[in-house]
């Protein structure tokens, strides 16, 4: 089945036996100059970001911006509705009694931050993406069970099918296979 999406590059997969081996493999991949590779595991592995040479996720900035939008937006809304659009004296308080508005402003700040974290995470991870070449591998299903894999994308500058396969085997990879996403 041909999809209308931009086709994803071919991928070489190799399986590793343990978190320790995957971490070492990641270090070796990075040291050899690979950039378009990923390490797949059933759970996040401590220290993997450093091993792969990844920086800190920018998600915090998204959350910060979203939270600020919630905070300021809600302050603006409470001010405009109670002091501008329909000023109304309630219990002799000032129109804009911001102290009493804090609970709602706080709630919306939290809500927007949570949206920022959730949708920001999805967009940074390019999810949902229901199809991906790696799903073409039967063995790769083990990654959500107890399997550890390295995947190298063909758009990596160093990618050459045979060389990548040989390299993955030299750093302890087993069951090296190529998936193109063209099957079925």
């Amino acid at each position, binding site marked *: 089945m041909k999809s209308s999406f931009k086709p994803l590059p071919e991928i070489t997969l190799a399986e590793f036996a343990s978190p320790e081996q*995957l971490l070492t493999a990641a270090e070796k991949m990075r040291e050899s100059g690979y950039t378009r590779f990923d390490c797949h595991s059933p759970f996040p*592995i401590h220290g993997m970001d450093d091993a792969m040479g990844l920086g800190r996720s920018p998600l915090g900035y998204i959350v910060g911006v979203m939270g600020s939008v919630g905070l300021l937006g809600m302050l603006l809304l409470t001010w405009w*509705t109670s002091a501008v659009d329909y000023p109304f004296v309630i219990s002799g308080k000032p129109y804009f009694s911001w102290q009493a508005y804090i*609970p709602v402003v706080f709630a919306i700040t939290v*809500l927007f931050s949570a949206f920022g974290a*959730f949708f920001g*995470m999805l967009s940074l991870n390019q999810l949902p993406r*229901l199809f991906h070449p790696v799903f073409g591998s039967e063995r790769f299903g083990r990654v*959500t*069970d107890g399997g550890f894999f390295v995947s190298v994308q063909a758009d990596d500058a160093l990618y050459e099918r045979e060389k990548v396969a040989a390299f993955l085997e030299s750093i302890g990879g087993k069951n090296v296979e190529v998936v193109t996403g063209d099957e079925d």
Partner: protein
Amino acid sequence: MSSDVEDISDLEVQQEILVAGNPTFEKITDVVSRIVEGKPTRWWYGLFTVSVLLTIMLAANLVYLFWEGTGIWGLNNPVGWGWAIVNFVFWVGIGHAGTLISAILFLLRQRWRTSINRFAEAMTIFAVICALLFPAIHVGRVWVLYWVFPLPNQMSMWPNWRSPLLWDTFAVSTYFTCSLLFWYVGLVPDLATLRDRARSRLRKIFYGIFSLGWRGGNRQWRHYELAYLVLAGVSTPLVLSVHSIVSTDFATSLLPGWHTTIFPPYFVAGAIFSGFAMVLTLSLIARKVFGLEDIITPRTLERMNKIILVTGMMVGYAYAMEFFIAWYSGNGYEKFAFVNRAFGPYAWAYWIMVSCNVIVPQLFWSKKLRNSIPVMFVASILINVGMWFERFVIVVTLSRDFLPSSWDYYSPTAYDVMLLIGSFGLFFTMFLLFLRFLPMVAMSEVKGVLPQADPHYHPPGGGS
């Protein structure tokens, strides 16, 4: 240097085996996924039938309520708030333990939480759904419920932002949304596990869509872990703020017995207390019925009992302090309200509350009793009975207001009772569906706390 320090602390954390028998990653997947993949037991069908019947009863009652109005409830002149508000506070309170377990214990690196956090979070979501039902229906004219939201309307009116009832709307709906997002983010890797194990086409499509195409790559995990941390961070203040705001429904009024500054912390402690009791009840049933004794270990249960003991003591302290302040304030109305609680027409409810919430948790001082499953099961149920009565006692303080001529005794009608029981039906229907279709233990998190998940792990007996 800093990495050395981290390694040492990691080793110390991992000295304790959190999952009994130290299973392999595959074993964890198998034990948890099998529950969802196999045929449900007769127990499940029996409980589900009862729950669905109770939910149908709830629906029928709601239809009659909307048709007839809140006059079918036992509300009378001094007691203008009845069971609807009692049930609301009760259900919101239950939810709080789930958030405490999933958010606060996560930030505090309490790794034993991984075995119970998934269904504690599920419990939160379903409890908050039940909670949201009651304020929605207690407004009477449910068809104008949208007035609580700041929507432009033909009257050009806006909500009163100073009202605690409006604060409730925002606090509880934010709480619900954040809990749902947090729960779902946690579920994604586990849904991917079920997707990869799925045999039938229907399951492949269902779990395939909801796992969003998760691939478990570290480029995904790094954003995922930060999102999880942020969601834990933003949920943490909610544990304290939501029930504080709920307590202002009472505390910002000018009524003796309600107008007290102790209410917010007292409500929060009570919420965590009752919520842990509910988590305990549910986990004891779940580990028995689904054979999860190795994952939900006795140590975890004991820790929950310790939290119940601590929060129970806080609640007991609040009861005592309310009395003390009533006397110390020298305010005759305040004093009357409390003497009336303990020795007035509702003394029976007050003493049920005190026995269940203050006396029962004292059992857990004994190591033997807090490790005994029958004892903790009975205690957890009694505590929730007691916590329901606590809210009842607070609300029926209204029955004797300032003027003796307007005093009246509040009793619920059959509709009140059916709505409460029906809400339990709704809760258990959702909970049983959750047990049937979603992984009830966070597999990826449990795998992450196994000793061999640490890249510096060396199996005992040499080798690497």
